């Protein structure tokens, strides 16, 4: 059994990789790619910087795009981007280890700074005195303390940002110059400068755009040099290990194991793992509460329908469950919110959220309140808020499960061992409970397999309707903000939970049926 579980867990990895690849490709290969999405092209008003992007001037836009390219590596092909993301997310890392800052953020080795485009045209504008001196000069003392290291990081970050910004501006200026010089098609579809476009052509210093480009080039080159210098210093300090390293070595120098780094959410500027840690428990709470509820209602319902098969009870129950199944989750949620929850109608339940305002101040269990009245307490308040969402999640599962129960029980009832049990003299109730139900439970466990993904799907909508801050809401917001990191991490989490649930179902099945041995 243990072997089987371990093997299945290992098989999960390719599945998860596959899931992330599918989503990554979806996001990356969409028209315009992630870049266009992040730049807000076509969102028509959604997303940070979306509607406003088109109204910036070319230089600022270029700077913004350069920033995004830098941060997300958007200039590279999709598969390279994926590889980079995978390397970050995988717990098994190759090469030197990253460092961990005191606040938990993972500090990676600074990557190379990109050169300004077509800088050779302006080679004479290179600032003097850069180079080795500065690189080794950064080895000056005082760089070993975390504070000094943080200063170095900050310096590099600033320099890098400046280099990026000036590079963007240079690119825009070069495009303008190329157009003025009559060069055909200087920019590609994304507005980036085509490489090699100036090959073999003499610079047209007479054009006003040339002067603009030159000034931009000077700024870009000096910023680049500064960024290179600070990078050198940072690298040297990095290798001296001022902060604790992330993870631990498996093969020293080559392979290490560290916690996966899911990145930082673009739209919220918080680490994705923190967002997940807040949202995932909420979604799991809703689904896990709904699950036993479903089984509690569906199994007796199905058993009753099977016991009274062919009578009006069976027909009525069947019809009721089909009708319940057909009710769209959106409709149920909207009706529930509208009629049961809003103050204008019944107002029985809270309309949104998981906690009342000021819930944090409440005691956990019900007891006497602050002003002498009776206070419900945190737990009861939570349960009260969770009632409607869980009910809306659960009702869909009733139909599926009860129908399966009924079918399984009817099939079992026709089997020979039930006839033997009756021939032994057992009454109808014992026969039903001990011989029919027990044998019918086996397919119900595997039913779990299809119920759980459906519920996870449903919880997206329910969370939106009831404004519950779970994974569903997170994902929808991420879609509208085009936040790739959150999307990927979210899909990964949900897919992982799903696959784990399937594994659990298999293990339970093996435990329940003595004929099955997991190979």
């Amino acid at each position, binding site marked *: 059994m243990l072997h089987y579980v371990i093997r299945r867990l290992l098989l999960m990895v390719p599945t998860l990789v596959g899931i992330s690849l599918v989503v990554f490709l979806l996001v990356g290969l969409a028209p315009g790619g992630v870049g266009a999405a992040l730049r807000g092209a076509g969102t028509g008003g959604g997303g940070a910087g979306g509607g406003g992007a088109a109204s910036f001037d070319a230089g600022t836009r270029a700077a913004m795009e350069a920033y995004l390219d830098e941060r997300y590596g958007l200039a590279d092909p999709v598969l390279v981007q994926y590889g980079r993301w995978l390397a970050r997310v995988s717990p098994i890392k190759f090469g030197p280890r990253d460092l961990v800052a005191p606040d938990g953020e993972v500090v990676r080795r600074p990557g190379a700074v990109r050169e300004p485009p077509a800088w050779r045209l302006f080679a004479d504008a290179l600032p003097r005195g850069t180079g080795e001196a500065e690189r080794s000069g950064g080895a000056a003392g005082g760089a070993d303390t975390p504070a000094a290291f943080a200063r170095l990081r900050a310096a590099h970050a600033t320099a890098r940002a400046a280099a990026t910004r000036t590079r963007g501006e240079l690119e825009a200026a070069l495009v303008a110059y190329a157009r003025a010089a009559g060069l055909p098609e200087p920019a590609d579809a994304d507005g980036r400068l085509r490489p090699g476009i100036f090959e073999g052509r003499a610079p047209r210093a007479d054009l006003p755009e040339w002067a603009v480009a030159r000034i931009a080039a000077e700024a870009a080159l000096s910023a680049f040099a500064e960024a290179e210098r600070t990078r050198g210093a940072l690298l040297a300090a990095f290798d001296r290990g001022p902060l604790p390293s992330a993870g631990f070595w498996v093969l020293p120098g080559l392979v290490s194991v560290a916690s996966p780094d899911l990145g930082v959410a673009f739209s919220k500027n918080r680490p994705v793992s923190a967002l997940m840690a807040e949202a995932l428990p909420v979604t799991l709470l809703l689904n896990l509460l709904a699950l036993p509820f479903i089984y509690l209602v569906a199994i007796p319902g199905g058993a009753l329908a099977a016991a009274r098969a*062919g009578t009006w009870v069976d027909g009525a129950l069947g019809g009721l469950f089909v009708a319940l199944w057909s009710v769209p989750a959106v409709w149920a949620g909207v009706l529930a919110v509208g009629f049961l929850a809003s103050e204008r109608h019944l107002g029985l339940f809270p309309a949104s959220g998981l906690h009342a305002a000021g819930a944090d101040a409440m005691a956990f269990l019900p007891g006497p309140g602050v002003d002498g009245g009776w206070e419900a307490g945190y737990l009861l308040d939570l349960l009260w808020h969770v009632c409607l969402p869980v009910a809306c999640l659960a009702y869909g599962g009733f139909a599926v499960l009860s129908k399966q129960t009924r079918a399984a029980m009817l099939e079992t009832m026709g*089997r*020979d*061992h039930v*006839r*033997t*049990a*009756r*021939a*032994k*003299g*057992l*009454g109808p109730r014992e026969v039903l409970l*001990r*011989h029919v139900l*027990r*044998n019918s439970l*086996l397919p119900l466990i595997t039913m779990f397999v299809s119920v759980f993904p459906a519920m996870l799907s449903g919880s997206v909508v329910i969370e939106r309707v009831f404004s519950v801050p779970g994974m569903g809401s997170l994902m929808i917001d991420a879609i509208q903000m085009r936040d790739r990191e959150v999307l990927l991490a979210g899909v990964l989490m949900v897919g992982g939970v799903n696959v784990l649930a399937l594994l659990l179902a298999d293990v339970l099945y093996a435990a*329940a*049926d*003595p*004929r099955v041995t997991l190979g």
Partner: protein
Amino acid sequence: MPLLEVRDLAVSFGGADRAAAEGGGRAMAVDGASLTVYPGQTVAVVGESGCGKSVTAMSLLRLLPSPPARIERGIALFRHGGGQGGGAASVDLLTLPERALRRVRGGQIAMIFQEPMTSLNPVYTVGDQIIEAVLLHQPETARTPGGARAVALAAMEEVGISDAARRIDAYPHQFSGGMRQRVMIAMALACRPSLLLADEPTTALDVTVQAQVLALLREIQRARGMAVVLITHALGVVAENADVVCVMYAGRVVEYARVTDLFDRPLHPYTRGLLACVPPLDGGSGTLAGRLRTVREVVDDPAEFARLVGHERGLRPWWPWHEPPTGVGTESRLVEMEPGHWVALWATSGAREMPAPAPDLPDRFPQAETAAGGLVRTGRLHSQG
């Protein structure tokens, strides 16, 4: 004193499908079956597939699913607590209230089935299933810890399952076919019933295992004085194990006699046809050299019918595929042609004059000798499995 008297049992099957497809009406699976079982006796019910023998047995315990199946008429008088002595009350199984019938099932009348593979619940251990039966009918065993388990163990050992103490906690799928049938028998007999209905208990087993199981049944029967209704389609089994034989066809009893009388002097052409299918070891008389006659040939042969005593008085054996004599319709009559030998005849006027009491034979043959000359093994056989 007979233990069980079945008189004119009729069971029909019907339902929505049938009604729509065949223009209404129900199908009579059993149409007027009668038999009598005495304590310690083995009555074999013989016939081909579809003749109604299983339905007869299952309707005694009312195990048939009742929307499609319906008991049209008949009584089945069973003597509660009937053993060798007399004097216990008789009840009609067909009209007994459900609760009382449940006490009879398993406790007084036990039934074992054809397919041991599927007749045991795969998710419970064998011991659990036997103990369940024990606790149901002998609740006093529950008072002592391990009391019911001890009874179950004893039952398993009695049917010849070696290493019963370990095997009692095994699952059905861990047993072989023959062993499973032994488990079924153990489960059936754990509560010491006075009558065992065995519905083709060995059909699904191979021949050697078949012989072992039958020998086991005979042994237990002799030890406890239990009566057995043995449903089978194998004449060899009948010859070796039965005291009284009831031949059925198309839901009616066609012939009813002692086993010796039946094999020596079959009266109904169908029975003669069945026996003619058995290849004679000596090249036999009455058959075409080197060729077996089919049942159809025998039954359709007018000469066979003419052999019936009383043919000149207009007595014709009942056979549903022949034209009935004029004015008879579909009615048949189980007539005692010779003392202790009943045959089904068309209900002609001649037949109506003949005596037709309900078939009733109290004979029991000691196990060692049967006139048919079959080999009989005595003593218990230990299982090898």
